[in-house]
């Protein structure tokens, strides 16, 4: 997740709250904690009901945050720190960019572009296409078509190296990018396009087509007006490239009417070099008007959707928290009204008003902690679930992605802190009312 606060603040927040409680206990010294614990256990039905409400809210928050976390991981995992992405001037997204080879033929000669062992510039010329694909055997009530992302590259090895990807199965597509399938009688048969699939799209394309969890090397599928054959699986899947199909530029570009490149990705030494080269290309590249930016920045801009989701989630969580707060207030007010005599006795035994306040406040925190822990445990079951979504800069375009929900320490810390804050807010008023009860009134 993205945030203005440093990472350690989130992770340390439950511990900080626990520390605060300990400090409070030290200050108040004598707090009837065992009495509170016993009450929580004796009134187990109310405890379970209140904690369940907390658990549900926290579990939901954890799942929602895990979804956004997965989106952030995906976009952050897609950009290489040393890469520069070059689009045509004015294009807000790869999808709308248009670069001709003649206008950009010398771009890899620019200073700062890294080279491989053979002296070739680490430069990948690509066309990015979103294809509208009929869904094979679409179940009733489900869309009959879907969007599939195709990337045409000149040299898959070089492109994968530039993007920090590697083959996890199969092989790269051939120089031609197509192959002939042998027919039953051994003669040359149908010509198919060779494709390398990202891990996530391999799972998506298998749905309704094959009775297996994902497409494997050798499987065939229909896309656009042609048949494609899987020749390799690309990894890791934790980037937007995991939701793409790669093919030979000279084959897939013309197939979908895009004979020009949409983007050129150049590898430099590091982020600073990438920023320098991007600025240089945008200002000084004369052959064509281009807009270059570090790939990190490009993918960071795709976080606009994530931020919208995050704001919505926090809004929903905050509103639901009001329900949780009132629930614990009810519980604690009821607990106090049932235990007025107990409060009187505690006061007679020498407990001060502040110690009574601390006692009831801690009881509400205890309920919140129990609910929060259960909620985090339930919510963490969502870790690893896959979900589809869109990442975009909010200015058109964007990428359809299949992401993995990520429940990490930070997500759990936010969930637990959220629960404790609900407990604290909901518990403070009843605790104050308990503190204000006079001994004579309580014992009367």
């Amino acid at each position, binding site marked *: 997740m993205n945030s203005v606060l440093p990472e350690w603040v989130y992770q340390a927040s439950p511990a900080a709250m626990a520390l605060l409680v300990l400090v409070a206990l030290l200050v108040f010294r004598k707090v009837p904690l065992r009495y509170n614990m016993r009450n929580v256990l004796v009134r187990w039905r109310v405890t379970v009901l209140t904690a369940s*409400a907390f658990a549900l809210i926290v579990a*939901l928050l954890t799942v929602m945050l895990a979804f956004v976390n997965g989106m952030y991981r995906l976009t952050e995992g897609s950009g290489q720190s040393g890469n520069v992405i070059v689009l045509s001037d004015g294009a807000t997204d790869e999808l709308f960019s248009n670069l001709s080879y003649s206008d950009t033929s010398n771009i890899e000669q620019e200073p700062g572009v890294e080279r491989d062992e053979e002296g070739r510039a680490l430069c990948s010329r690509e066309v990015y296409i979103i*294809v*509208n694909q009929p869904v094979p055997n679409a179940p009733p009530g489900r869309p009959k078509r879907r969007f599939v992302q195709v990337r045409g590259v000149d040299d898959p090895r070089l492109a994968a190296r530039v993007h920090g990807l590697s083959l996890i199965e199969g092989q790269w597509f051939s120089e031609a990018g197509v192959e002939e399938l042998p027919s039953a009688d051994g003669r040359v048969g149908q010509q198919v396009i060779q494709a390398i699939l990202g891990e996530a799209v391999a799972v998506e394309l298998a749905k309704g087509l094959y009775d297996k969890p994902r497409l494997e090397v050798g499987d065939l599928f229909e896309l656009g007006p042609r048949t494609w054959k899987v020749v390799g699986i690309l990894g890791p899947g934790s980037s937007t490239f995991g939701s793409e199909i790669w093919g030979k530029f000279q084959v897939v570009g013309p197939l979908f*009417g895009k004979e020009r490149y949409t983007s050129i990705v150049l590898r430099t030494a590091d982020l600073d070099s990438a920023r320098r080269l991007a600025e240089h290309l945008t200002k000084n590249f004369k052959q064509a008007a281009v807009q270059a930016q570090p790939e990190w920045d490009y993918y960071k801009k795709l976080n606009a959707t994530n931020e919208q989701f995050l704001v919505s989630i926090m809004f929903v969580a905050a*509103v639901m928290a009001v329900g949780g707060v009132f*629930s614990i207030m009810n519980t604690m*007010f009821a607990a106090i009204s049932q235990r007025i005599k107990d409060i009187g006795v505690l006061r007679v035994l020498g407990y001060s008003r502040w110690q009574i306040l601390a006692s009831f406040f801690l009881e509400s925190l205890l309920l919140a902690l129990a609910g929060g822990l259960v909620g985090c445990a339930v919510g963490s079951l969502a870790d690893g679930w896959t979900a*589809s*979504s869109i990442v975009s800069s909010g200015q058109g375009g964007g990428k359809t992605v299949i992401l993995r929900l990520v429940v990490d320490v930070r997500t759990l810390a936010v969930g637990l802190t959220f629960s404790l804050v609900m407990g604290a807010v909901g518990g403070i008023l009843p605790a104050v009312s308990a503190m204000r009860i006079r001994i004579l009134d309580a014992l009367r």
Partner: protein
Amino acid sequence: MFFKLFLLMLKNLRRHLLRTSLTAVATMVLVFVVILVWSILYFLDVVTQERAKDLKAIVTERWQIPSQMPFSYADSLSRGAASKPDDIVPDDSMTWQFYGGTLDPNKRTRENLIFFFAMEPKKLRTMMDDLDTLDPELIRKMEQNKRGVIVGQERLKALNKQVGERFTVSSLNYKGIDLEFEIVGVFPQGRYDQSAVMNRDYLNDALDDYYRKRGVRHPMHDRTLNLVWLKVPDSRAFARVAEQIMTSGLYTQPAVKCETAASGISTWLDAYRDLIWGMRWLLSPAVLVTMALVVANTISISVRERLTELAVMKVLGYRPWHLLVLVLGEALLVGGLSGAASAGLTFWVINHVFGGLKFPIAFFPEFLVPRASLWWGPVLGAATAVAGSILPAWTARAVRVSEVFAKVA
């Protein structure tokens, strides 16, 4: 007897005003969340629901998005590719071309970006959803002045412009075709807050002008038509028109497809399917269960505190089911009334104060809370109240007089 029970319910609720208020507010906020979520789902269900009559079809490029077809397709597609006497011609049609750009090419921000639907102005009232009551004077102005545009209220505010003002757009998708516009009106608040519409003739004339001046066609010249909307009377007519278009030899470079608007929107929403699933089957049920738990907690506390009182009522002749009705009624009153209040407030505040719920999904920037929410609220409140109070009410019904008095003694 029922009236007596009703009075007792009111008295009991008044007796614990704080508890009643806390439960009511908790119910209200949770009903608020459910109504917001259901409003989004309700709208998406409506727009993806296949209609049998008066349906709209979309013709787009067959294989890729964004759809970019030559404008030469427009005329014949608008007639549903009808070529034979018995072919079906759509009742109405509309073409969309997209023209987007920035008011400040040197400092491009989201605020100074604008995106136009270039179309025939007269189709605004006949083909665009919810614009059938648009002031005809605005359309006349757009037809008389090719530069005239209608802009949504929020986009206008973001651009910091007013009706009557002129501005120049440096195009991002039609490089080299920068156009000057004059704002002739604004769209009514709601669905079109972020939209803008221009006269398609202005864009097409500018493309012709580009060719005249430079001697070469604009790179986008053969890809300016993005969508064609068709209105057909029923699903049978749609099937015929779709067949006419898909089998026509006129549309090969690129090939086109014809689908119902509902089907087209479903495809766009497919990327959000898991998010929508989560809202429908995780978020909403979880909020409803939380509501039921809050009510269950309150009512069970209330019943436990009143065990002696309930026993006395039994001694006084109240039947067990009277006590059951009494407890259920209290929960129903709190849940139903706070649900109704929440629904009314949500409807008014979201629609009339905020102008809709801003939660961009696909090309829907915001959602209105439907009128149906006015009954969702009380029903949700009452249903969760009953669900949450059924066990405590049963406990009240089953209270044993002897046991209670034995404890008191």
